[in-house]
């Protein structure tokens, strides 16, 4: 980690590797996780879930369950059909999108294994669980649409009344939108005179697997209904509870207390939240529901799950002239909060850091009878980045040059920024040359290539491979106008508020809440610099709609680039509100005041007054200028003008045991350019964790269903997430191209590692095995798959 030393003047905190102020309570658990919340008279709920992927519910017998002691209520979908509302699909990417109604509790039909059909509320969690086992549900099984490609052919319908499994069709075409030429012409030309690379890539289904299972407590006593929930989106939950259940928004308070991870998996409003809300409202008592890990894996939304069909056109020399992408995206049984838009978010990223002449992206989201699919760390961009970075390696092989050379030949040069891509996005800033040069240097690229050559010559059973990934991504979701054009149901602004307390302390309120990102530390650093207030005197409040009444929450690497800018605007308003008061108290003209290090001084004199002193004076309000309000508190809402585009070069060396198929990481270097860094320690955490999560897609994780539509990988025995013991220590560094679209110059880092590392690892494996005739392996590259690919290549099959 390159720690940026704090500099003088107003740049004291931003750039300092501050320890996170929230970690003490998070690590010791002395805090409020949703499941820690205990309320007087609180009841507990357990779910009865469908074991079938697709079935009609014939009859539900609740008598035995109701007869158990301390069981308060057993509810079925039929019991609450009139009042349960609906789970929101906020992103109908096309106006004719076909989407089944997603009821919190199924009424007549279940569409995936794990869907809730009944709930039991009892005095204790154990009694609720015991009673849930006794609820007897009579199902008639129906044929299930399970395989994505078969489902796209409509042979079996996931929702018979929709008439098709294809939810919509969405296209971006560079010729049609005027951002480039015709891709079909480019491919035809390349077939005649150049190189065409064609590939089909499976993006396997993944499970977010956050550390803290989802938990919801709803308290209906008092004037408001309060919901605590382990969510990334308290504000969206409040809005949608009001919109779909008829409870006035002003009567709902949603609190996301400390939340133990999300990775997009908690960017959702869930059946479990809605049912808990409903049960509490009905019974008039607080109700808690906490899922088990198996329930979490089975019913929390999944990620990825696409088939990508790719055609890359290039000249003989290796200059890319066009790319055609056809995506089939498995949406699972229902379209979730932003699920409709997730595969489409990749549309602007397939061209990556490269200059193309033509591009076409076609996306068909497909409904199946599996767990719903929605945002998962990277959401659409990892799929795109994986595809293009794999293709660039294949192109390098075809042309016969080093994979870095093929990228250099095609990438946008640093002097060409801002650069409008063939997909139509304008990249703010970047320097791919610098990041790549630095990565090669740290990696020892030439030495590792030499070692690779030696191992090849010696026919070492353990072969060395080097993988390259020069990724970019789009962060800072999002300009509201752009979201409007994409038919998204909300905007992309963010809100911040600063309260100057009379004792000199400061409360900062942010609309984007942390579920592990370290907002409390980073926000304090920004405000400390802007207002000249000591770091420790700043308290950051978030995640409670009553405290932070406005916000659009946390996802898409948006908090700092969007919320941080709102914070700066709010801080500047505080200074401007304080200025006339300072002038009045210092008996100087406003124009003669300057504000530095938290203090107004009269230019050219020793005379001055701290902002905190002004806050105290405002509290007393004994001597304020006429017409000035007795408050320095300020708020601001910021709507970004553009996305930000961080990038980086990741290099990975793997050792592949050709006898067993085992892949071992040997070295991993990440040089990320994420613009200005507020806290290098937080950034390092994001990068390390992100890389590990991306490597997990390459090597370990896959949600697997059997032929009946049952999730086989329904516990951590079979859904193999890595631990620290499975990864190596990554070498990370940064280059800095400040974003030109926000004051701080930040770009976002929450998803970068995950987006970058998957192709780096798979490219490395294939680089190791290419001399053996292996040119493709489906993810995750398990030892069995690697071994099978080697064996197939030996047998003359590809």
């Amino acid at each position: 980690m390159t720690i940026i030393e704090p500099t003088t003047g107003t740049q004291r905190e931003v750039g300092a590797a501050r320890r996170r102020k929230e970690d003490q309570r998070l690590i010791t658990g002395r805090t409020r996780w949703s499941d820690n919340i205990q309320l007087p008279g609180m009841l507990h709920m357990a779910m009865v879930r469908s074991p079938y992927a697709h079935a009609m519910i014939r009859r539900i017998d609740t008598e035995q369950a109701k007869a158990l002691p301390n069981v308060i209520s057993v509810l079925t979908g039929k019991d609450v059909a009139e009042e349960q509302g609906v789970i929101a699909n906020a992103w109908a990417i096309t106006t004719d999108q076909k989407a089944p109604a997603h009821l919190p509790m199924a009424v007549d039909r279940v569409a995936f294994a794990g869907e809730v059909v009944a709930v039991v509320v009892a005095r204790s969690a154990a009694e609720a669980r015991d009673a849930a086992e006794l609820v007897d549900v009579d199902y008639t099984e129906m044929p299930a649409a399970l395989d994505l490609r078969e489902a796209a052919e409509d042979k079996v319908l996931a929702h018979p009344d929709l008439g098709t499994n294809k939810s919509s069709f969405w296209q971006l075409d560079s010729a049609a939108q005027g951002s480039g030429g015709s891709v079909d012409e480019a491919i035809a030309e390349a077939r005649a005179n150049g190189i065409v690379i064609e590939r089909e890539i499976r993006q396997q289904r993944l499970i977010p697997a956050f550390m803290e299972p989802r938990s919801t407590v709803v308290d209906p006593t008092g004037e408001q209904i309060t919901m605590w929930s382990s969510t990334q989106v308290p504000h969206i939950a409040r809005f949608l509870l009001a919109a779909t259940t008829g409870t006035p928004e002003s009567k709902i308070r949603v609190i996301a207390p400390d939340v133990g991870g999300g990775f997009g998996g908690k960017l959702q409003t869930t059946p479990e939240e809605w049912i808990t809300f409903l049960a509490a409202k009905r019974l008039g008592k607080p109700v808690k529901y906490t899922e088990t890990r198996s329930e979490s894996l089975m019913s929390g939304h999944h990620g990825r799950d696409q088939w990508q069909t790719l055609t890359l056109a290039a000249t003989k020399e290796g200059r890319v002239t066009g790319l055609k992408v056809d995506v089939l995206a498995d949406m699972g049984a229902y379209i979730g909060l932003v699920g409709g838009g997730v595969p489409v978010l990749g549309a602007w990223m397939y061209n990556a850091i490269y200059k193309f002449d033509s591009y076409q992206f076609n996306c068909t989201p497909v409904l199946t009878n599996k767990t719903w699919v929605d945002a998962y760390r990277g959401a659409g961009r990892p799929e795109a980045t994986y595809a293009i970075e794999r293709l660039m390696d294949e192109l390098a092989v075809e042309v016969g040059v080093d994979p870095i050379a093929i990228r250099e030949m095609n990438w946008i040069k640093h002097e060409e920024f801002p650069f409008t891509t063939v997909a139509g996005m304008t990249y703010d800033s970047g320097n791919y040359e610098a990041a790549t040069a630095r990565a090669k240097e740290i990696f020892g690229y030439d030495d590792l290539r030499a070692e690779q050559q030696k191992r090849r010559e010696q026919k070492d059973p353990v072969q060395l491979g080097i993988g390259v990934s020069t990724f970019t991504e789009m962060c800072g979701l999002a300009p509201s106008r752009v979201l409007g054009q994409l038919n998204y149901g909300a905007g992309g602004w963010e809100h911040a508020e600063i309260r100057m307390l009379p004792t000199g302390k400061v409360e900062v309120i942010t609309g984007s809440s942390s579920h592990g990102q370290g907002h409390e530390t980073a926000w304090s650093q920004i405000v400390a610099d802007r207002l000249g207030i000591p770091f420790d005197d700043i308290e950051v409040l978030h995640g409670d709609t009553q405290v932070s009444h406005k916000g659009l929450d946390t996802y898409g690497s948006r908090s700092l680039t969007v919320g941080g800018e709102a914070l700066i605007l709010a801080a500047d308003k505080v200074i401007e509100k304080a200025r006339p008061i300072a002038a009045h108290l210092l008996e100087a003209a406003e124009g003669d005041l300057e504000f530095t290090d938290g203090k107004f001084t009269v230019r050219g004199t020793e005379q001055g007054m701290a902002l905190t002193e002004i806050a105290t004076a405002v509290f007393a309000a004994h001597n304020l200028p006429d017409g000035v309000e007795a408050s320095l508190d300020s708020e601001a809402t910021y709507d970004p003008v553009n996305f930000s585009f961080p990038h980086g070069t990741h290099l990975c060396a793997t050792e592949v045991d050709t006898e067993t198929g085992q892949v071992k990481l040997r070295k991993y270097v990440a040089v990320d350019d994420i613009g200005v860094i507020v806290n290098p320690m937080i950034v390092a955490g994001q990068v390390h964790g992100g890389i590990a999560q991306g490597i997990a897609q390459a090597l370990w994780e896959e949600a697997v269903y059997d032929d009946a539509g049952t999730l086989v990988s329904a516990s951590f025995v079979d859904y193999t997430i890595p631990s620290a013991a499975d990864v190596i220590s990554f070498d990370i560094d940064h280059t800095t191209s400040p974003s030109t679209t926000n004051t701080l110059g930040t770009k976002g880092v929450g998803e970068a590692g995950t987006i970058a590392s998957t192709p780096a690892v798979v490219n490395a494996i294939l680089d190791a095995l290419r001399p053996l005739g292996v040119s493709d392996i489906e993810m995750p590259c398990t030892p069995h798959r690697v071994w099978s690919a080697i064996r197939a290549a030996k047998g003359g099959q590809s």
Partner: protein
Amino acid sequence: MIPATFEYAAPTTVEEALAALAEAGEDAKVMAGGQSLLPVLRMRLNAPSHVIDLGRIDALRGIREEADALVIGAMTTHDDVMHDALVHEHALLLTKVTTTVADPQVRHRGTFGGSLVHADPAGDLGAAAMALDASFVIAGRDGMRTVAADDFFVDLFETAVGEGEILTEIRIPKHEHWGAHYEKFVRTAQQWSIVGIAATVHHEGGTIMEAKIGLTNMGSTPLRARATEEALHGVFANDEAVRAAVANIADGTNPPSDLNGDADYRRDLAVVLARRAVLHACGV
């Protein structure tokens, strides 16, 4: 998740435990360290009427020497086995295998005997017990009996320990100056064995005098590779010779097919891992 309700007893002697077990009837479960039983109960894959916890029976813990054998109490934790000097000296293979069992938390709770009686074919200790010619002392209402390793493992999750019986100790003949190695093949660090090869070898001047090999997860029970052991006898321990000797180690095995790989893959792995395990055990 929360288990279904059950009656709980925590006897302090083997006699009391046997009595409690007899009284509880056929739906009772014996709990040793609970590292396998509790997850099963919590996922409601099993709902016993009674759980008889052996955790308070001090007599079942500890490791001692008895003439030519090591005697390990069934309730001795993996962690104690792993750090025991006697085990290291006389049954090095067991030390090496035990260090690969799960993680430190599980090793502090989980027990040697509990794991063996659980008899998960992907569990590591069975292969070591087979290779080391362990014998198993089982207490029942009619007294004690001793069962050889070959007869102990009956099938998937089934051993010679019958209803109403308790495994009290495991006796292992001393293997002084035997090299040992366990090749545990996993996808992620903390995972059940996909395949495991436990090898212990007595060699002189690079020549294998005697080799004993146990296989993990190559069938419904841990297996002993006797034909391969024969083939290794008198072999000079180099890559080529050992490769030839272990080539047929998977013959007659019936490994499972699952998310980690199919049976063919496991058979191929067994051959590769056996070569590596034997060479390692020989210090090559």
